[in-house]
């Protein structure tokens, strides 16, 4: 470790565009100049004030939006079903809540976010020292694609809704633009999380690739060993490591089985083995597996040969040397796991609010789509549900955000678990007692250090959550539609009763002179009223 600290590109260099945009729209408060020149995220008071100002501004605008578009709702209240009205009211502020959660969390975390990236830089340096290179260049591309997709989705939803569904003759309708702000801010914030998570996943994968390289190198080394000295009877190694030659041990096992059954045919096969165990037939047969006693020597040989020829050298054949490397890699692995947990901690509330938003909006949008196809009025903030195509785009956008985060968390978690598998491959292929001890120790360590992402501990961010959520959405949708149907039928019944009432009233007025007809009318009224009550 005495060598000078190698230069690795800090991860944040790839975040330039994203940071400027985030700074501009008020997602992050950190210092702009420090970021530009030193690629670090540092606390900034001015940034904080700016961000608070923007937050206030957004809140005022959003409330204005709700107020100005709420006029329609108040006039429509009579015709809307109660359920639709209540759902609309409940979900009015959810977008705003999500945005405020994101921004306030970003304000609170402004110091810690910088530390996180600093830790990632340190990890990169340690990986670099182990000749394990991480390529950050794809991250900038990723960010650009995500930003592009965000713009495309937001603009499409905003413009198509504005053109098709908003009455743009009134100047106040320009306020509709504000409706896109919460989702846009939220997406920007989540891009930070997603890309950082992706970077962690790449680091896990780099570690795994290094371990797999060790294995591949050692396998090559072993085949080379066999190629150099074909007379050396190490057929079991050849069979294990090159996968091509069928080994003999199955016949050995058959043989063993016979042996256990008491049939002694060992002398037929064991002719090539050493004669020192020929005392008893059983002992002799135990010795006759077609190989066995020579193997310690073979092991020794495989350890010494690489010193002669440098063309094929395997690190795994030198246990003491590789011990340090494996230890370091596992420590880095632990550190990345810790970073993952810290990152999850920083974004836990925003992710929770996003998931809640995703679940509620997905259900509500589908429900309102149903209402719109039944020609019922829906809350004006959810007017995009009037058009099935826009609804599909909205749903894809919202669910895409949630599912991508879940998918990425799951993948990262899998990549971290994959390290244990690669480590064991190293151990098995090297087949060295000292190395087995190291591997066992590190393997236990890895078992205790797994990274699992969760949203404040409410649910884990893995694909199993999707199963539950999709089931929940379907059930709620069916229940909502059923209630809506029932309400609609009640309304229809009342309407038909009222019209019947009117005609009956007319009939009653026409036949006013007869008492019996009015009593008939009473009878009709009571019979019609009973099922309703």
């Amino acid at each position, binding site marked *: 470790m005495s060598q000078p600290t190698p230069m690795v590109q800090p991860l944040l260099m790839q975040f330039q565009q994203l940071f400027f945009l985030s700074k501009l729209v008020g997602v992050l408060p950190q210092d702009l100049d420090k970021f530009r020149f030193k690629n670090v995220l540092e606390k900034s008071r001015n940034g904080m004030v700016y961000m608070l100002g923007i937050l206030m501004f957004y809140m005022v605008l959003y409330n204005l939006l709700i107020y100005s578009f709420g006029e329609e709702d108040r006039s429509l209240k009579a015709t809307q079903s109660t359920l639709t009205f209540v759902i609309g009211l409940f979900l009015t502020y959810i977008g705003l809540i999500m945005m405020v959660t994101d921004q306030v969390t970003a304000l609170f975390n402004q110091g810690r976010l910088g530390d996180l990236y600093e830790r990632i830089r340190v990890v990169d340096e340690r990986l670099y020292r182990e000749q394990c290179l991480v390529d950050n260049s794809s991250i900038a591309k990723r960010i650009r694609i995500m930003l592009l997709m965000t713009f495309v989705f937001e603009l499409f939803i905003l413009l198509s809704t504005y053109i098709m569904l908003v009455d743009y003759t009134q100047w106040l309708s320009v306020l509709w633009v504000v409706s896109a702000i919460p989702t846009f801010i939220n997406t920007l914030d989540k891009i930070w999380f997603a890309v950082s998570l992706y970077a962690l996943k790449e680091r896990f994968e780099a570690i795994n690739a290094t371990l797999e390289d060790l294995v591949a190198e050692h396998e090559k080394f072993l085949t080379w060993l066999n190629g150099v000295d074909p007379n050396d009877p190490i057929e079991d190694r050849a069979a294990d490591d090159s996968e091509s030659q069928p080994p003999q041990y199955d016949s050995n096992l058959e043989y*063993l089985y016979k042996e256990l059954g008491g049939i002694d045919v060992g002398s037929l096969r064991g002719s090539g083995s050493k004669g020192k165990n020929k005392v008893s037939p*059983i002992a002799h047969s135990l010795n006759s597996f077609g190989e066995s006693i020579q193997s310690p020597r073979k092991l020794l040989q495989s350890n010494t040969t690489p010193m002669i020829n440098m063309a094929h050298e395997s690190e795994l054949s030198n246990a003491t040397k590789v011990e340090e490397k494996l230890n370091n890699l596992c420590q880095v692995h632990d550190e990345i796991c810790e970073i993952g947990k810290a990152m999850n901690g920083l974004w836990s509330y925003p992710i929770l609010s996003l998931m809640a938003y995703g679940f509620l909006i997905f259900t509500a949008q589908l429900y309102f789509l149903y209402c719109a196809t039944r020609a019922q009025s829906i809350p004006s903030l959810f007017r995009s549900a009037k058009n099935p195509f826009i609804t599909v785009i909205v749903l894809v956008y919202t669910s895409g955000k949630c599912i991508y985060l879940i998918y990425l968390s799951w993948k990262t978690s899998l990549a971290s678990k994959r390290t244990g*598998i690669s480590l064991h491959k190293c151990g098995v292929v090297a087949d060295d007692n000292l190395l087995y001890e190291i591997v066992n120790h590190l393997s236990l360590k890895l078992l205790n250090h797994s990274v699992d992402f969760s949203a404040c501990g409410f649910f884990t961010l893995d694909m199993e959550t999707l199963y539950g959520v999709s*089931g929940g959405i379907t059930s709620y949708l069916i229940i909502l539609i059923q209630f809506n149907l029932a309400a609609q039928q009640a309304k229809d019944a009342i309407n038909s009763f009222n019209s019947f009432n009117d005609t009956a009233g007319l009939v009653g007025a026409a036949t006013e002179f007869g008492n019996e007809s009015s009593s008939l009318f009473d009878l009709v009224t009571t019979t019609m009223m009973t099922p309703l009550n």
Partner: protein
Amino acid sequence: MIGYHIDQVLRFHLRCYQLIGMHGLPLSSDVYPRQKSKLLNLWAGCLLTGFSGVVYMCLTSDDDFLYQGDNFSYFNDAMKFGFAEMAILSIYWETLSSQRVHLACFWQLYEALAATFKATPSVRTLRQQLLQHWRFLLIFYGTLLLELALLCVYVLMQEISRHLLLFWITFQPFVLVVHLRNTQFVLHLDLLRQELLQLECELILLVEYSGFAKDSASFAGFDEYLRRRVREKQMIYERINEQCTCFTRGFSYSVLTVLLMIYIRITVDCYFFLYTTFNNIINLDYYLLFPAILQIPIFLYASQTCMQIVPRIAYQLHNIVTGCSPVSLQIQNFSLQILHEPVRIDCVGIVILDNHLLTQIAYAVCTYMIFTVQLMPKLSGAYL
């Protein structure tokens, strides 16, 4: 791969799957593998466009492909076609796309493992092969024949209206393809199960042998011998696990969509079965649901049996009697490896495919039944 090839029975069925575009890889005995692979890709592409064209036609046509009587039935028929299209898309997409790499890896590993398990491949007769794959064969031919028999009975018994004719002519091919895909999953899982069982048997032999050596007789190189055997088993397990990963990666999306399609069909058809009985409409096509109901448990059972062998392997491993520290170190290593590499068969990580999923599906179908049965009188217009 040198020397060993997949046996005849397997090869025949893989050819069957090639014929319906689900196995996009040339077999090892093919003369021109590259051309063959291109041809298979082309064929899968043709099938995909054909099926998608049918779905497009059904969804857009004004004719009676989907039930036009009321909106709810129309929606349900459209949903069935929608999910069928999803399943078809994912099946052929996996044949065409990068997923085939995983499948190729699966078969490569299978051949390598078969070569290590069986030292003499040529002596196996057809009868032995049939015995080896009897589970798969039973499932493959059983479900296929049942399906065809029910279809014949249906054609003979049911008075067929134009809607029924058009619907079943267009929808039945999807059902067949999806069910065949399901049997393909079962085939792969059955091979995995066989390998795991073989590994377990060999471990049992080792256990017996180690006990025997401990009690009766031992010799100088025995511990080293035992250690190397354990290591061999460890490498075999590693390969089986890799094969399992290849399976889940290679079939991830189609497992999900195939299960979804069958599940949606069961839910919808169960509802309409109740609905038609409620309204005294004579319709026999619900008997066609029977093979679909069989498919899910067959698949889940196959995957569960695979997963259940692993704990037994670990158990046998720790039964090996030894007093020697290198051997116990090796056993520890193997045991830790099993902890790190559990055989877990899931679809895109969403849900583990075991019988627990079966109970969940049953719960869900019952719940939705209750919801929709509640809706039934309202939709039929009885109250209006």
